[in-house]
């Protein structure tokens, strides 16, 4: 038996392909939306992976350093290093800001890390060009997504930094590329005020009689010095010794150091389930709407195509064609349309995903799930047309 659906598709392939392309672009958008969600999750995981930490120690009663602001003293790291099970610990700061270059300014997450100790958590893991930071000040390593070039001078707050190395896929949970600078510079950039503010603050302190007592020499200078320096960081990243459970190390830190400590699992929960939860729901809503729109379009197209063949269907039924053969023809056409649409959509999404400003991760698993969903939607959408075709009276082929 010949394939009636196949012959019909071959006969009017232009109409089928054009319809499939239209549907495919819609499917491409759907796949891209799924890719945007996957990209957000991957960015969050990448942030955790790149930090190479087993524990995140942050200010008590906060969910920092990525989801909430957190500030702890930079000498806390020494007491953390003395805790059982801690192999290495390092201070880090995170600040999302506009980093200016000569040409433009770029939204980036500026990461302050402890320079000069290779392998410490928080440092850039690998470089794709240039070298690591070797000086204590005014050198930076940037993610390639910033668009900065090796040797380029970038400005972060009051100082200029030379880009000495480039790294890749070092992004914040929001997808902003990272710029790594020495910790001391980052503390200054994040916590210190500008010169005018410092000057005004000094004047205010000097005018305060309780802070500027004539009988206490050196008090004013000490207070002003403390105001002009900062010893806060956002978090201490901890690597564990082999054989130690993260939760077992975290618990004493929470209990005795009056700090919050998150394990990798807990931090992933904060980033994926909380930080991007609203965005994920937003995308899920888009996916549902796009699926409904796709189903409606397929149903409408197949229904219209079937209505255009009512007389032929009546003739087919009159000459003895089984209902299931006719239903099969319509179903196969709907599935064919879905297949063309899926191929066009997948190719389109693959081509346009890299153009998106944020990371779009097209996973093979999502493609397979998408194909199954498209086929199911097309099959369901064809039922309307099949119903119409099965209602056709073979007597309609005989005039009168």
């Amino acid at each position: 038996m010949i394939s009636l659906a196949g012959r019909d598709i071959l006969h009017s392939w232009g109409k089928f392909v054009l319809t499939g392309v239209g549907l495919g672009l819609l499917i491409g958008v759907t796949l891209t939306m799924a890719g945007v969600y996957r990209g957000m999750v991957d960015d969050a995981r990448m942030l955790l992976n790149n930090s190479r930490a087993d524990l995140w120690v942050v200010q008590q009663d906060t969910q920092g350093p990525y989801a909430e602001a957190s500030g702890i003293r930079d000498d806390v790291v020494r007491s953390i290093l003395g805790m059982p099970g801690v192999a290495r610990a390092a201070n880090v700061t995170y600040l999302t800001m506009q980093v200016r270059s000569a040409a433009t300014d770029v939204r980036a997450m500026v990461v302050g890390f402890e320079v000069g100790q290779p392998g410490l958590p928080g440092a850039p893991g690998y470089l794709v060009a240039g070298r690591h930071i070797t000086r204590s000040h005014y050198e930076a390593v940037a993610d390639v997504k910033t668009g900065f070039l090796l040797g380029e001078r970038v400005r972060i707050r009051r100082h200029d930094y030379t880009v000495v190395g480039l790294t890749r896929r070092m992004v914040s949970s929001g997808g902003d590329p990272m710029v790594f600078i020495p910790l001391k510079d980052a503390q200054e950039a994040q916590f210190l005020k500008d010169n005018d503010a410092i000057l005004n603050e000094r004047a205010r302190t000097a005018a305060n009689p309780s802070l500027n007592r004539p009988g206490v020499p050196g008090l004013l200078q000490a207070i002003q010095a403390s105001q002009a320096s900062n010893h806060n960081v956002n978090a201490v990243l901890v690597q564990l010794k082999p054989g130690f459970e993260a939760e077992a190390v975290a618990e004493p830190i929470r209990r005795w150091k009056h700090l919050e400590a998150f394990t990798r699992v807990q931090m992933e929960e904060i980033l994926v389930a909380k930080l991007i939860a609203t965005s994920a729901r937003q995308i899920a809503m888009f996916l549902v709407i796009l699926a409904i729109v796709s189903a409606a379009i397929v149903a409408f197209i197949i229904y219209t195509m079937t209505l255009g063949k009512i007389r032929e269907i009546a003739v087919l039924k009159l000459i003895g064609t089984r209902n299931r053969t006719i239903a099969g023809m319509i179903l196969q056409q709907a599935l064919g349309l879905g297949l063309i649409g899926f191929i066009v959509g997948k190719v389109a999404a693959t081509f346009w995903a890299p153009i998106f400003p944020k990371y779009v991760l097209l996973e093979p698993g999502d493609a397979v799930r998408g194909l199954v969903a498209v086929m199911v939607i097309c099959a369901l959408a064809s039922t309307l047309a099949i119903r119409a075709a099965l209602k056709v009276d073979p007597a309609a082929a005989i005039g009168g």
Partner: protein
Amino acid sequence: MTARLDMTEPGIRIEGLSKRYGEGSTAVDALKDVNMVVAPGEVVGLIGPSGSGKSTLLKCLGAVIEPTAGRMVLGGETIYDNGWRITDLRALRRDRIGFVFQAPYLIPFLDVTDNVALLPMLAGRPNAEARARALELLNALDVGHRARAQPAELSGGEQQRVSIARALANRPPVILADEPTAPLDSERALAVVRILNQMAVQHHTAIIVVTHDEKIIPTFKRIYHIRDGRTEEEAGQGLTL
């Protein structure tokens, strides 16, 4: 050309056939005690004004609507006797009745050969055998040279010949032709009637031609007039084609 009539086992025998649409005061008797006999190899005309019951009779014979009462015998087998005697009407239409329509109604996405071969294929014949049968019929009807063409590429006369080939594809004992010459000019209309007569004889098929076409009415040897649901038989001129 003379049909070899065999009234002992007619291709079509209808006895007391009636069809009522609706019920009660709104009931309409479309057919009333219709009697008709068509021998194998014979082509008879069925004529009548619009609304006289021609199409209803054709639909009853084609097993697409159920009569109210009466008896119908096709190819020696009783298919209706105050109720269907056949359970699979779809198979009956496929295997035992050929249809030729006013417009050819060829399947536009199948080529000429497959339009004809579709019926044997639906009956379970292998594709090669079905296509061989189709080519045999197309050659007999002088459209073999258009076997690979699409229906839209054929002239009206060629399309009608292909639809006749399709009607004959499963060697049915009966062909029902509904205004087969309506869209054709005189020359082509007479050609179609000539072909139907040839095919009736060659394939031993009983053919009923429903028509309004004045050009072809004189060609029938027997004509059934249908008026207000009743048939009257009269002898036609039977002009030699």
